[in-house]
């Protein structure tokens, strides 16, 4: 589904990602682990086209997208749930969801399934996005990415700063999405959360991949050591 080869990424003059190779196979949940500041979020941003990526290759379902502008990558079928959620604060929850349909030029409807996954959103449709709590904003951000049925879903630290009960809900939603056949790439620091849901993992340190493997074969303690400070 997604193949990244020899990817470099820069913020201005400084290099953040040195040489990344990463694959996400169709129908799998792949997780990218790592400490703060090693370039995990930058990696997702470079797939989205939000940072400068002078060399390397990003292929989505076999076609190269590294030269495409951000909006075209979204339209090619990448759903992005950024760190910090990035809900539009001054417009309503409903309008936030409707913006998720923009990949199809705003056509189509918000499927009822979204409200089944996140019942809380249905009660809050008229509220301003900025007035939701952190956990509600996270659910809204996931719902907003889902309304367009993307081929690849990318989550950036979905558990960060969120109360345990909602983390559990989000975990359930991700497993449900896997059953439905979604391909998912998650960036995380919270190892326990990943163990239950991911199939394959990569560990990133200082802008390169330092370990990878199947989650079922993972040596938990070594990995925990690699990603904790």
């Amino acid at each position, binding site marked *: 589904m997604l193949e990244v080869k020899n990817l470099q990424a820069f913020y201005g003059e400084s290099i953040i990602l040195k040489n990344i190779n990463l694959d996400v196979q169709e129908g799998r949940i792949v997780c990218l682990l790592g400490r703060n500041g090693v370039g995990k979020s930058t990696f997702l941003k470079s797939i989205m*086209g939000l940072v400068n990526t002078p060399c390397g290759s990003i292929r989505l379902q076999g076609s190269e997208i590294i030269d495409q502008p951000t909006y075209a990558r*979204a339209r090619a079928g990448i759903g992005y749930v950024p760190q910090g959620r990035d809900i539009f*604060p001054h417009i309503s929850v409903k309008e936030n969801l409707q913006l998720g349909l923009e990949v199809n030029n705003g056509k189509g409807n918000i499927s009822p399934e979204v409200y089944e996954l996140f019942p809380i959103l249905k009660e809050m449709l008229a509220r301003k996005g900025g007035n*939701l709590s952190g956990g509600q904003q996270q659910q809204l951000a996931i719902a907003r990415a889902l309304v367009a049925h993307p081929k690849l879903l990318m989550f950036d630290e979905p558990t960060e700063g969120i109360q345990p009960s909602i983390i559990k809900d989000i975990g359930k939603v991700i497993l449900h999405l896997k059953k439905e056949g979604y391909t998912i790439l998650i960036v995380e620091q919270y190892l326990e959360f990943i163990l239950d849901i991911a199939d394959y993992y990569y560990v990133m340190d200082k802008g390169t991949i330092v370990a990878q493997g199947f989650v079922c074969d993972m040596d938990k303690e070594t990995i925990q050591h690699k990603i904790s400070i």
Partner: protein
Amino acid sequence: MDTYLLQIFNGISVSSIFMLAALGLAITFGLMKIINMAHGEFIMIGAYAAYVIQNIFSQYLPASIFDFYFFIAIPASFLAAGIFGWVLERLVICHLYGRALDSILATWGVSLILQQLARSIFGAPNVDVKSPDWLNGALLIHPGLQLPYKRLFIMLMVIICMTAIYYLMYRSNYGRKIRAVMQNRAMAASLGINTRKIDAYTFAFGSGLAGIAGCALTLLGSIGPTLGTNYIVDTFMVVVLGGVGSLWGTIAGGFLIGTGNTTLEFLTDATLGKVLIFTLVIIFLQWRPKGLFTINSRSLDE
């Protein structure tokens, strides 16, 4: 008292023109963080577009339909200023995103070029646009207080435009996209919104609004190449006072500046009135630096 009421009425009708121009400015500034010093020139372009339409009607079309030229002039002004705005965005503004200071200098240069262009085409002296006959005369409230039809017509026109803008910005797909890009450009792009296209269309639309303002100004007096410069300061003041990017703020700011200006001018004189209104705006902004209408929310990234 009647004189004062008439002054207030005139003040509101002039400031309603500012509101229209200021809305264009507020939308483009809110969206692109570009300070467009050439915005006044779009007022001028709109005014000259009305002048051209008037000339076409008086020269090539039967005199009986001359009085209706204004209904053609309004959309023509919008289109003319909008097309100039679109070209400006594509050629100049799109290279200046995120560089507010450079944008002031560059758009000021553009404004000088546009003024000279008008001078070369239409000549330096002011030209007159003849108002349609049906706008001459006044509504008699009681002897001593007459409200000119022209100014009533301007107010009606501005109210119609405001309603249209409201629906476009808050009730349409396009408006939703504009607001999304204003609030978070990167996320809007990540949802598949072509932000470059939104920028270009919105800039053209904002310029077109200034064009309509220019068209309205032709009813109040003669027009010349420097028309825009005369109005741009007041327009900026309305935007700053109202709060950038806020529709209601711009309307309230326009009302306050309009009525305040005329009141103070009535009580003192034209120059002192201007000085006083500027001083009051400055003092007000010390108290509320973001303007009349600010938006509060829970989000941290502001």
